[in-house]
């Protein structure tokens, strides 16, 4: 039975938590990023850069700082792990013309982050092409050590997969107080990552859309807090 015991959680310093997938060890971070120590690789999903300006073009003047904020968060977590490779799991750009709208200062930040580092953009439905101006390599998907990294999770009981796209979020009710937060969701064989972008919303993991991926039970959920990442008992989770 001891193999079923969770690895040690430290709730006092909960900024990241151990997460294992098909026998490989990862660190899941409170920002929504996933670090793969063996590969020195940092994985993030659904940055949705320039979502603010996308809305602005339609008359809703949301703050133009979401790209800046997303890159700031990304820089922090890259620094923390000193990652050698960064993999963005698709929907890095909010729409097809987003790259052209990125502010020069933000482009420079991105270039600095990419310096001396392998940078891989995996394409998503929002960004089937990633403009060369953003640097890095562009791939439709990637397999590393038997694990496939792609944007959209394959339907059905697929294993050995890390994906994004779904923007998973969980809603928790404890002591009469409700809390809704983005989350990591995994059954030990596949993982769906939370959206990393500053202006991204979330879809409740109790929504029917998650059922074909994970079935009805045996999932683990880690919710993103302001001071840490917290594994949460699924029976505490609620519909919206």
């Amino acid at each position, binding site marked *: 039975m001891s193999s079923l*015991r969770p690895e040690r959680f430290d709730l006092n310093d*909960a900024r990241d938590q151990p997460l294992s997938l098909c026998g490989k060890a990862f660190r899941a971070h409170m920002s929504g990023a996933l670090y793969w120590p063996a590969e020195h690789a940092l994985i993030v999903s659904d940055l949705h850069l320039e979502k603010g300006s996308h809305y*602005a073009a339609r008359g809703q*003047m949301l703050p*133009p*700082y979401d790209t800046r904020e997303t890159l700031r968060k990304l820089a922090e977590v890259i620094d923390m792990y000193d990652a050698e490779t960064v993999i963005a799991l698709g929907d890095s750009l909010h729409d097809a013309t987003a790259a052209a709208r990125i502010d020069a200062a933000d482009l420079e930040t991105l270039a600095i982050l990419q310096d001396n580092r392998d940078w891989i953009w995996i394409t998503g439905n929002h960004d089937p092409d990633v403009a060369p101006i953003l640097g890095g390599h562009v791939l439709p998907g990637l397999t590393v050590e038997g694990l496939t990294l792609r944007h959209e999770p394959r339907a059905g009981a697929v294993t050995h997969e890390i994906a994004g796209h779904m923007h998973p979020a969980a809603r928790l009710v404890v002591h009469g107080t409700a809390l809704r937060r983005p989350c990591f969701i995994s059954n030990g064989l596949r993982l769906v990552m939370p959206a990393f972008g500053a202006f991204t919303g979330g879809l409740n993991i109790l929504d029917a859309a998650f059922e074909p991926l994970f079935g009805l039970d045996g999932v683990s959920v880690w919710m993103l807090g302001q001071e840490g990442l917290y594994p949460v008992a699924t029976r505490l989770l609620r519909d919206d």
Partner: protein
Amino acid sequence: MLPEPFAQWFARRGWSPRAHQLALLQAAADRRSTLLIAPTGAGKTLAGFLPSLVALSSGKREKKGAGLRTLYISPLKALAADVARNLETPIAEMGLKIRTETRSGDTSVARKTRQRTHPPHILLTTPEQVALLLSHPDAGYLFADLDTIILDELHALAASKRGDLLALGLARLRTLAPAVMTIGLSATVARPTELRAYLMAQTEPDTTLALADVVTVKGGAKPDIKILAAEADIPWSGHTARYAMAEVYDAIRKSRLALVFVNTRMQAEYVFQELWRGNDDNLPIGLHHGSLDAAQRKKVEAAMAAGKLRAVVATSTLDLGIDWGDIDLVIHIGAPKGASRLLQRIGRANHRMDEPSRAVLVPGNRFEVLECRAAMQAAEAGAQDAMLSRTGALDVLAQHIIGMACAAPFQPDALFSEVRTALPYADLTRQHFDRVVDFVSTGGYALRSYERFAKLRPADGGALRISNARIAQQYRLNVGTIVDTPMLKVRLISGKRGAKISALQGGRVLGELDEYFVEQLPPRATFVFAGEVLRFEGLRETEVYVSRATASDPMIPSYGGGRFPMSTHLAARVRTMLADPKAWRALPAAVSHWLELQAERSIIPGPNDVLIETFPHHGRHHMVVYPFEGRLAHQTLGMLLTRRLDRAGLEPLGFVANDYALSIWCRGDVSAAITEERLSLAQLFEQDMLGDDLDAWLAESSLMKRTFRLAAVIAGLIERRHPGKVKSGRQVTMSTDLIYDVLRRHDPGHILLEAAWADAATGLLDIARLGEFLARIRGRIRHQPLTRVSPLSVPILLEIGREQVYGQAQDSILRDAAALLIREATGESAA
């Protein structure tokens, strides 16, 4: 004075015109704007309309525009409809050729469109509709003949964001119809100057305040107010007044029609339930509050008017204007929180001026006894709460500017001058105005990346025009300053256990519940709503499904709305009463005994002092502060003191606040820290806490985020949630909290943060009042270390655990949930 056929009509009814009605006619003849202050029952509305009716009935006047002569604006569409009905009688009986119509959100599109080109002579409507009418390009034609604007219940409108919007609308109406005259109708107010100035164009805002004339009708008989004498002792804490229900019922039994006022919807549900529980005579008792379905509310109103009810339990939804029947007693459950509110509510009883209105106050706890006495004294002295003079909100200005741009291209110079004629914006600087224009156009961000998406574009001669027609559509869908918390429909279904909820099952809609409340309902929880005990069956899109339950001890809804803090005026009276042992004799024995005990065991603070008690209790060290400044200011103070005590190493664990006091409990020994001079109370309560500490706390405060959301919606940054759009909204729309966080970090000087801050200062955080308190108590802090709980502190200590305190508890919730998981996973049982 009164021309025909009016003189004859009055005579036929056996009336003679009242002095104030004639005074208003004279003022109108002299074209002078006037404020009429009169108690209910004085014929205020007729007085307001007489000048218009007389003018409209006497001969033809040349038409320059569409022919709309009089605009009547009321805070409630129901009141507008009621007044329209009442106008029909004199118009019909005198055979006047005057057309009157109402206009509200419910008016059909065809009628609304027709009203813009072929309006009636008199249009009765609400501030939002005025804003909409002014945003059309044909507004100039529509209002060209406008002669009189009547503003009803002005006291209820002026000092709010709605009042700001209306003031801006008035400014534009004066531009379109320069000769227009205003008539304000108001209940008695403490400082009529504000309202008189509100009615006028402030053409020289820097030097002189333009004031309308004022006509005051003295109140009739003094109200007859009593505090209910109950057999049971008044409880230490709580607001339900359960102890007095038998006596309340008895009072209802002895009256013709009693109006039972409460402060919150929760209390309304509770009191209604309790009254029916002991309703041995089967008296028809109704319920009326803002969450109930409109149809159900209308039924209760009609039954009242028809004399079919003996009592109605109501919240502030019945505060204003409309006559619903022959009410002869007002029962007020809980403290009235303000002298003006009490007078307003008492005025609902007996609409004949010469007979006293009868009212009974039912305090819910011991502190409320003091507050009820204070309110009674204030009412007897005819004292009113002073209305705060108001600085116009910038989010409302943003909405107005876009509305004006939708009507026609505007010259910024001209619009700025026009806006400054509105009283709330008389002090507006050009710099602020320009920043708001910039916000409307491009979001007003320091990072100027949205120029190419600008909503306002240069037109001829330096004017600005909207860049496309969609902007006008967007504006019209989002107009108004009332942003409700998201509400969910409550639908009754049959509650077979395990039955799957299907759309076909849909039964009657009972009303609406606050989304925040629903979010916290555990499955199958029971609660009281619409006067019934219901079980929560589930949530489906925007509807809450409930079934009838028989639970005898239901969990009670705590949905928001209607929780006013105690007014400054009443607070001062309460402090004075507390400081004067002679005044205690008038109080019930249990209460005066309680205060005597306090004098013996601790101290009674002077009227301008603040008492701070520190003592150990249940293994923790409490610090109880008694500012009497209202719940909102106390909550803010509690948050800030907690931060400071934390820095002082006293390890605060939590706090609780009510209208009178707050208590903070710590691990560290606060008494010792003060007496050993490690902690200085003077420094702890130094005004500088409103600087950095406040700023740091606000970064996290959920109250601030809520305030920001309201400002963002009003200013047009975020679109309102419209029915039907809600479902997709959930996953696609980001929450305004994210926007707030990003804006604070990357553009801390942004105008919308400034607007939200100003709102918070007077609204949910009541920083303005807290600032006044901190200034008042400098050098007047009286500290009393004790070895045990003091009598005065018992009520606040009893509230611990009952009140949910807003705060940064979010991660602790996650931590608890995680700890639970670990315990389960590692096989340690929680038992």
